[in-house]
């Protein structure tokens, strides 16, 4: 019998220490259902970015991580990692780093081409994704000449083009103008994928997610309905 809700992400007892000794994650337990959207809140330096880096094997800590039934651990093979990375689309907090190809189109097509599509198909998917984020006009520009918000949009397109099962967005609204934020909200609402949304923008998160987890010094201090989490941790500008 199949469980009515299937976990696409299953993390247990995750601990991670940076090489300089900082203990950034100290026993994380987290699960996410197919199609679910969860917001991740927490103070600066509480470990949110470190956590999402684990979700497609960029960092390897102690504990167990399963993505769509695929286990990422020390012995994970290259093709397991490739399969995981095709399923988890990660938009980095710093979009400067995410853009590295000579043109916007080539950059957005990069991930798709790595999945083995022909260059024409990759370019077509890339154009569609650029269309979705309103950047079709910049396809031939050099990514490093874009404005901060434009870079953000292109970085998001690069992940959308791969059509992952799980979207992980680390601070996606930073440097987007209000219309850009509104469009991103509408776009994310239309996408059926499971989503993890790391953000300090409480209103944006509440408009999209029903659930929130709260990070505190490398642990999850709260997990539940988003409004009650906001209230419990006084996590909005309005609450004293």
């Amino acid at each position, binding site marked *: 019998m199949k469980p009515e809700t299937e976990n696409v992400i299953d993390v247990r007892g995750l601990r991670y220490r940076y090489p300089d000794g900082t203990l950034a994650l100290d026993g994380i337990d987290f699960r996410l259902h197919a199609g679910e959207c969860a917001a991740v809140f927490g103070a600066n330096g509480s470990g949110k970015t470190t956590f999402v*880096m684990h979700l*497609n*094997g*960029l960092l390897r800590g102690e504990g167990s991580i399963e993505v769509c039934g695929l286990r990422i651990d020390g012995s994970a093979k*290259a093709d397991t990692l*490739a399969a995981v*990375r*095709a399923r988890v689309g*990660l938009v*980095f907090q*710093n979009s*400067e*780093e*995410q853009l*590295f190809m*000579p*043109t916007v189109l*080539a950059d957005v*097509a*990069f*991930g798709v*081409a*790595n*999945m083995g599509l022909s*260059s024409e198909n*990759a370019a077509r998917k890339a154009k569609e994704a650029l269309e979705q984020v309103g950047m079709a006009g910049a396809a*031939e520009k*050099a990514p*490093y*000449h874009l404005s901060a918000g434009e870079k953000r949009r292109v970085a998001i397109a*690069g*992940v959308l083009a*791969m059509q992952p099962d799980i979207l992980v967005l680390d601070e996606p609204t930073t440097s987007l103008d209000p219309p850009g934020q509104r469009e991103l909200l509408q776009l994310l609402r239309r996408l059926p994928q499971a989503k993890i949304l790391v953000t300090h923008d409480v209103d944006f998160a509440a408009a999209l997610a029903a659930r929130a987890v709260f990070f505190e010094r490398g642990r999850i201090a709260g997990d539940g309905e988003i409004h009650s989490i906001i209230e419990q941790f006084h996590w909005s500008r309005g609450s004293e």
Partner: protein
Amino acid sequence: MASALRHASVERWSRGSSPLHRVDARAKLIALLVFLTAVATTSKHAPWIYAAFFVLLGSAIFLARLPVMAMLARAALVLPFSAVFAAMTWWAGDFPTAAVLVAKSFLSILAALTLAASTPWVRLLDALAFLRVPRPLLLVIQFLARYLFVVGNQVAHMRLAAQARGGIGKSSLSGFHAAAGAVGVLFARSWERADGIYKAMLARGFTGRFPAPQVAPFLARDVAFLCAAVFVTVAVRFAL
């Protein structure tokens, strides 16, 4: 900062649409190799051949509608290096060899610059791949260019940040100290940025090989350019 800007302007020129820009990158690359070989093997007793090479290169720059003075200024950056050796030979009483040394290095760099300024970076890499330059070497070239740009950008940002807070930018002793400290931070930051870029590539499924280059058809126009360029170069070299 200067290096980032310089990189940026050659990059901008390379996106032009002159007749030379439209020629296939492979044809231009082969023409460049023939030209460099011809220059390298020309005798020092035929000064007018060098003059003819300059005229030849000048017409290519004219055909590409590139800013002549700015191109000459950039090519002149090699002069200090070759001038040292030239001065030594001149000192030893061999004026022709000294003059030829300077002429050869200046012609070679100007020719390479003309190719770089009339061919988008992506097309150039594709052409190198087509001419069977080994992939690992191409990867190194691509990374190097990308990281050089990263370092250049870091310098620009740090300099601006320092100037905004009244730091370096002035030529005083305290400015020198600030600069010396900044160099250390620059390396650390460039390293972390490069590492971040590498992680972003992995996150989108990078496995160590770039997607296959797009092969554009080699047109009659490209054949004509290649034949003409090779014929004229060889004709000048052998003083027909």
